């Protein structure tokens, strides 16, 4: 594990030979690192290449909820990540051999800074924050999860988007050899998600690199995933390899799969039902498993809150927008 000041060693010097930055990328990396002087980061974020390695220099966030987080087991064994299979336990089962380093992110489109960046260079100018967020799945279950990441707004700022950049598009790695779920046509690959520029630069969304103070597990989207806490979980795209600044809105993966069921906005909203289930209530995941019938009967559903309880921070983004039409 490396703990060093921003100026110490350039990450390119410790990168493996087949992955060193060429001159062009080096210049881009320098451009990225420039931002760190302004942000005054105490510790540059580093991501160790080792499962469950502790992340260093994490600071708490005022945006965190004080609700009790779900157990590490709940968070890492029950989720959707169709790249590794369609059942809830598939991501955990099928992602253990996934190699998430080295990792690069391609930045393209209407922004001053474009190019392909090593993940370590992307995160280095920033301080890691812990954000304990509620996660609400469109399937009417929810969790509370202590993510570790970097505010998306800060990362976007580095790329200096142009005024023509109306949307930020994210793409997941497409590699059926490494992601067995992609051998099936359950979705159209690669997975594409998108936020408006106003949503993306809101203080709430983060690019997560960790969970429970440790490196992000493969099944949860390692090494880099989006977290947008006021939207249904499928908006929070995992395994990001591309960020594109676009003038127009692409059709996102779930929109393409079932347009009448999954909309672009996908804001958590108890008033707008999904065709196959009500969104009025949610089941908070929590394995009281083995606790007998008593715990089963006491695990009542709880009411869902509009914008997943983050209305204060984000409701203004949708002023004048009919959320029933724009679901």
């Amino acid at each position, binding site marked *: 594990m490396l703990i060093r000041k921003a100026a110490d060693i350039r990450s390119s010097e410790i990168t493996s030979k087949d992955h060193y930055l060429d001159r062009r990328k080096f210049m881009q990396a320098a451009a990225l690192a420039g931002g760190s002087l302004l942000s005054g980061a105490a510790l540059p974020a580093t991501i160790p290449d080792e499962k469950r390695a502790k992340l260093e220099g994490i600071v708490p966030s005022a945006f965190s909820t004080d609700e009790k987080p*779900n157990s590490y*087991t*709940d968070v890492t*064994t*029950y989720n959707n990540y169709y790249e590794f299979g*369609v059942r*809830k*336990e598939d991501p955990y089962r099928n992602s253990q051999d996934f190699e998430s380093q080295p990792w690069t992110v391609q930045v393209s489109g209407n922004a001053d800074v474009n190019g392909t960046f090593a993940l370590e260079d992307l995160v280095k100018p920033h301080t890691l924050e812990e954000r304990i967020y509620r996660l609400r799945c469109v399937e009417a*279950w929810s969790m509370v999860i202590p993510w570790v990441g970097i505010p998306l707004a800060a990362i976007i700022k580095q790329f200096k988007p142009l005024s023509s950049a109306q949307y930020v598009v994210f793409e997941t790695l497409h590699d059926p050899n490494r992601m067995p779920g992609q051998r*099936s046509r*359950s*979705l159209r690959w690669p997975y594409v998600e998108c936020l408006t520029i106003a949503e993306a630069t809101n203080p709430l969304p983060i690019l997560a690199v960790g969970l429970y103070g440790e490196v992000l597990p493969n099944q949860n989207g390692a090494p880099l995933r989006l977290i947008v806490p006021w939207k249904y979980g499928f908006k929070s795209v995992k395994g990001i390899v591309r960020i594109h600044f676009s003038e127009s809105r692409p059709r996102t993966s779930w929109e393409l*799969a*079932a347009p009448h069921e999954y909309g672009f906005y996908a804001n958590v909203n108890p008033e707008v*039902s999904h*065709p*196959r*289930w*009500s969104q*009025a*209530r949610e*089941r908070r*995941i*929590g*394995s*009281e*498993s*083995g*606790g*007998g*019938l008593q*715990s*089963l*009967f006491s*695990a*009542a*559903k709880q009411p869902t809150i509009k914008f997943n309880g983050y209305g204060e921070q984000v409701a203004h983004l949708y002023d004048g927008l009919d959320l029933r039409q724009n679901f």
Partner: protein
Amino acid sequence: MTGWISGRTSNSVLKNSQLRFIWKPTVFLICLIPAFHAVGDVYGITGDLGANPVENLQDRFGNWGLRFILIALTITPLRIQSGWNWLARFRRMLGLFAFFYVLMHFLTWLFLDQGLLWSAITEDIIERPFITIGFAALLILTTLTATSTAGMRRRLGRRWQKLHYWVYGAASLGVWHYWWQVKLEASEPLIYAAILAVLLIYRLWRRIFLNPQREK
């Protein structure tokens, strides 16, 4: 018509007493294994229910309900093809187990998932088509269960068989309910649908091309 009912034939290779005191109780206990397993998991003895215990229970009961309907429907073709007429003696028990597991699936939904919130329950049954058809399947199976006794069968006479052909309706609705509920990856419901299709085609084929009177 009686050929479709069967089970009353005399060429059974099993003695009645053997059937009644050994084989029927054995099959009965085997059919209960999924239920025992569920109870064991609830108490953390045979395993656990994972991060979403209610969903886990609901899904497994629903799955077993569908499997038992299909198993019960396989009995007659198997009997006809193999000549093992004693198979017919297990058909009602298997059908009743199908109802039992479907009922458990429904009760899990009603009590544990919905928490007996009647407004949400009626909304779901009315407004969510996949729940509507699942509920319809349950109503059919309930009717068939209520008329499954020897007394009811005698009383209904020829109408009994007509009524009990509705098991195909229940099976079709059940598979459809499952198919609709899963999102995109429909491999498991597809397997059930394929088995059901084979069973239906087999029966239709016999109906059209063979004189059912010949079946004994």
